[in-house]
């Protein structure tokens, strides 16, 4: 389905995750972040870039991996995206929600 975000039509799934990563812009990210109650800083954008690159390379995202990224520590990651950092960060980065696999 389409949703009007930051003045553009963006396709999202029922949970609000973008289904076409190429539609992502900084403005769209800021608007989704605002819905989550987060105001994006340069540190956020640095992490978003890391997340988007990881996913583009087909790698799995984990809290451990982000903690080792050199961008932020795991604790700082929680500070940037409080509560559910991985879910919020992926949503704002315009990539699919990570699936937990056990």
């Amino acid at each position, binding site marked *: 389905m389409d949703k009007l975000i930051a003045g553009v039509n963006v396709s999202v799934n029922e949970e609000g995750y973008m289904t076409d990563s190429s539609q992502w812009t900084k403005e769209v990210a800021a608007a989704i972040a605002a819905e989550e109650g987060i105001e994006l800083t340069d540190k956020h954008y640095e992490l978003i870039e890391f997340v988007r690159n990881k996913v583009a390379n087909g790698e799995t995202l*984990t*809290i*451990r991996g982000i903690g080792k990224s050199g961008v932020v520590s795991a604790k700082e990651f929680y500070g940037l995206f*409080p509560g559910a*950092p991985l879910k919020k960060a992926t949503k704002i980065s315009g990539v699919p929600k990570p699936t*937990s696999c056990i």
Partner: protein
Amino acid sequence: MKKLLILGAGTAGTMMANKMRKQLARDEWDITIVDQYKTHYYQPGFLFIPFGMYTKNDVIKPKSDFFPVGVNVIYSKIDKIVADKNQVLLDEGVVLQYDYMIIATGTRTAPEEVDGLKGNLWYKDIFDFYTIEGAVALAKYFKTWQGGELVINIAELPYKCPVAPLEFAFFADAFFTERGMRDKVNITYVTPLPGAFTKPRATKMLGELLEQKNINIIPDFNIMEVNNEEKKIIDYGGKEIPFDCLVSIPTNMGDDMIERSGLGDDMNFVLTDKFTLRQKDHENIFVLGDAANIPTSKAGSVAHFAAEILEENLMCAIEGRPLTAKFDGHANCYIETGYGKGTLIDFNYDTEPLPGSFPFPGLGPFGLLKVTRTNHYGKLMFRWIYWHILLKGKEMPIDSEMQMAGKKL
């Protein structure tokens, strides 16, 4: 002579040694298997030890009992794999050459990954039950424990046998009830998952079971550290949970040797194609069992189903044909729920655990996502099947590919 090398003689490696010795002509192929330990542990049995249902002797046998005739066995640590030269370096300077290799070095618990977990209280008030040492220490502890806050915590995904922590919680409920002290024990299940399990129907069923048994669940908890002085666990978001006894499922990691060999991900699991089971960058290396980074459960049942796929694909590779077998991620887990009953789940990469009957549609005898006595006997019987049929690579009356017949959508 051509050489097939198997690294690791656990469930996966031992099954493959048995299967491939039957497949490959003795006068053309040398098969060598390497492991640092001489004892084979029946790991599903560890869960029963803290509650006095099994002892150490019930879960150990010599590895050598399960190797077929005509396989070379080397007990040694592995230094590293040099994949570009088709070589494996063992400790003490031995070099092994291979034409094809199967990596089956499994996973280990890494309590050192969480700050404070392996601190002053380790094996005093903090235990794991995924090692024989932890399970035995916990059994001794429970014999005299006076009760209090029993906290079960999963540190991180993925971890071996994903239902075992739930079974532990169910067993603890029954154990302390039978000892007449359940009112003195508060059981809390703390998990990084959003619920009791990953997929919707199993999560609902198992979540309700926890509730019925008066076990608290705290989801979305990613542990940052253990505070030994104040006896509490703390997550990255600042949430704190006090404990008197902490049963931890520590971070699981692949063998350090995988990191030294440059073949794995950031948790040392080998990069593996999830359908063919071939290593991502090397055509003559295959991976079986917990050592692989494929998105399915780390469990013996998965290794067993995948072994049939690997056997076929390895023969394809050896004979220069395209790989024809495709693994579907099939997993099958008996779940002990306490009081002599159990439930069962059967699933794969694409299909979540569904209710129904197994393995025969409509007949069972086992019930999927149902709590029955027969399911419990299935689990107990499995130990015999494991030692006598599964490890020896013999046929079992269950398809390696998951079946939809008997399942209700």
